[in-house]
């Protein structure tokens, strides 16, 4: 069992909007965050979830070395929803050395390096690359940026386990708190559009050329998105905060690098371990926010895992049809969406579904519904067979 932690602040910048109010409004009015691919000159017929305004907000001053799309997105996220003020208050209470930082990312600022290779290629081979490697491409750069921006000096690391990265940060944060290393942890995830992920997923045949349609019978791949999200976790809040992080479950598929176990064995293990750690039974879970990428293999494997663990009664939906798959930021973005659902007693339907896949046996939500919620699950699974399930609850 783990000691529940309190969510005392959260912030998001994602394709549905900047900040929690905009995101919530989009979620409950079925406003979509995907659009036809217009990222740079990437000529791939697909849809993307893009955050507006990143191109026109260079980073200056002390943090100028960190300037790149991914870190701009991180700063944009940090500036939402009074998050920096909430962290400043925690810093005063606990001291900067007692607050940790754990950020998930998969590609960090690789876009800068991609563009540097292009410049080099255009100018003739043999030229050196001009890249601030440490502050852009290296995966630690975003965690380093966050701790500097928030003026924190506690333990810090980036976690990169593909698409489960920013779910895994919750597990490590819980351990840091339990071991007494910290009194609070800023967990987060930031991933931004780049050529590597667009062309890479295209090479695997995993991109849909329409907006992705998780759980639809004719789903044919994912839509890539970008997002930044952050949560502040403390043992107890001071203002009667109701949202709580109750448990995590981690597992490895031990099956294949880029294909999930066909029966979702690893995913089921992650959900079972999360239930154990939260001391809950399947019947206690009111809603599951699916990993639900919209690839044929993922949705089927996840459905098998849910059927095995929960049977066919727990309502499930994927919100990736609205945000796209934000990769290393998917865990945190969907944790935030699941927490918004808890807060507002609301379950988002999958409005893009034209015809539900009859092979899927779990209770897919086609329409959004308002219903009292006490506990919700968010699933995140990644390449390399990395699975992580999170459980959130709400004080009565």
């Amino acid at each position, binding site marked *: 069992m783990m000691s529940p932690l309190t969510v005392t602040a959260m912030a998001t910048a994602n394709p549905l909007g900047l900040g929690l109010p905009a995101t919530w409004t989009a979620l409950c009015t079925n406003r979509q965050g995907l659009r036809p691919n217009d990222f740079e000159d990437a000529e791939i017929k697909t849809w993307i979830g893009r955050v507006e305004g990143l191109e026109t907000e260079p980073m200056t001053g002390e943090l100028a070395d960190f300037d790149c799309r991914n870190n701009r997105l991180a700063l944009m996220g940090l500036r939402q929803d009074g998050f920096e003020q909430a962290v400043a208050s925690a810093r005063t209470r606990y001291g900067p050395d007692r607050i940790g930082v754990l950020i998930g990312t998969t590609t960090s600022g690789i876009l800068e390096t991609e563009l540097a290779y292009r410049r080099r290629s255009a100018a003739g081979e043999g030229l050196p*690359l001009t890249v601030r490697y440490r502050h852009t491409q290296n995966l630690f750069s975003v965690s380093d940026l966050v701790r500097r921006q928030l003026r924190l000096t506690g333990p810090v690391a980036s976690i*990169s386990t593909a698409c489960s990265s920013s779910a895994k940060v919750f597990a490590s944060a819980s351990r840091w708190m339990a071991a007494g290393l910290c009194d609070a942890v800023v967990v987060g995830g930031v991933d931004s559009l780049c050529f590597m992920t667009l062309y890479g997923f295209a090479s695997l045949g995993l991109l849909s050329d329409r907006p992705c349609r998780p759980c639809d019978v004719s789903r044919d791949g994912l839509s890539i998105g970008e997002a930044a999200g952050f949560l502040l976790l403390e043992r107890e809040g001071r203002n009667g905060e109701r949202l709580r992080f109750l448990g995590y479950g981690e597992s490895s598929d*031990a099956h294949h690098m880029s294909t999930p176990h066909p029966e979702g064995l690893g995913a089921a293990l992650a959900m079972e371990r999360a239930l154990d750690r939260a001391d809950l039974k399947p019947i206690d879970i009111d809603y599951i926010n699916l990993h639900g990428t919209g690839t044929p293999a993922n949705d089927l494997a996840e459905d098998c895992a849910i059927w095995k663990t929960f049977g066919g009664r727990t309502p499930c939906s994927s919100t990736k049809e609205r945000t796209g798959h934000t990769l290393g930021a998917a865990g945190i973005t969907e944790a935030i969406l699941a927490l918004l659902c808890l807060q507002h007693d609301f379950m988002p339907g999958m409005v893009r579904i034209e015809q539900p896949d009859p092979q899927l046996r779990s209770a897919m939500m086609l329409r959004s519904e308002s219903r009292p919620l006490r506990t919700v699950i968010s699933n995140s699974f990644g390449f390399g067979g990395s699975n992580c399930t999170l459980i959130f609850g709400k004080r009565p």
Partner: protein
Amino acid sequence: MMQVWVIGVGIAGPGLDGWAAARPVLAGHAEYRLTPFAPAAPKLLSAAERRRCSQSARLAIAAAQDALLAGDLPGDAIATVFASSDGDGVITQEICESLAGAAREVSPTSFHNSVYNAPAGYWSIATRSQLSSTSVCAYDVSFAAGLLEAATYATVERGPVMLVASDLPFPSPLHGIRPVGESFAAALVIAPTRHPGALMRCAIGLTPHRTVTAFPDAIPTALRSNPAARSLPLLAVLARQATETVRLEYTDETDLVIECEPEG
């Protein structure tokens, strides 16, 4: 401070190929010789996975396999933490070159090998371990961050965990912006309780930054530039079986302190 027991050590690098051979070198009983090093394809993997497996995965798995040799725990009974600063520069290079070309074709195998947790993925496939695996990065101090993560895991989850730290040189032109000289990987299997055959009891915690423990004298500059080689001050104490405190740089403000007490 967190109390853990080191129950296995693995090492893979030039002149330090396997703990059995490296131990007398790190203890100062044998001379260090910088010899060319290329990790073999992991025998634990199927032929198909071995073919696909990246250089970074080979390197990490070489150290991980070595760390299991002396102990009695199978790989599928041990959770893992993989730590690396730079991931796989060979693949980054290949993909960036392709993306800068006219065709912009990315090889599917390269793309799935490009994820930071590729070594962890191959290791779990090789050992059939379904336990937790976390891949962490903290630039030059990734080993310290990984050891903190592993010690915390063992302490809180009450189970054994293996830390595998590895980095390899970038090819040119990436090498120009990240000049790492040599490949190196180290692995430590740690347990939360006293264990038969344990080498060392370690108390691990964070303290304000001071002077950190130096590299063993014999280690050449080209190897010192590898972030994973920052494990060598600790590995030298393990090799000598000495009662000593090792301080590793972690953040600007904080060091990771490991108080070592030999067992057995």
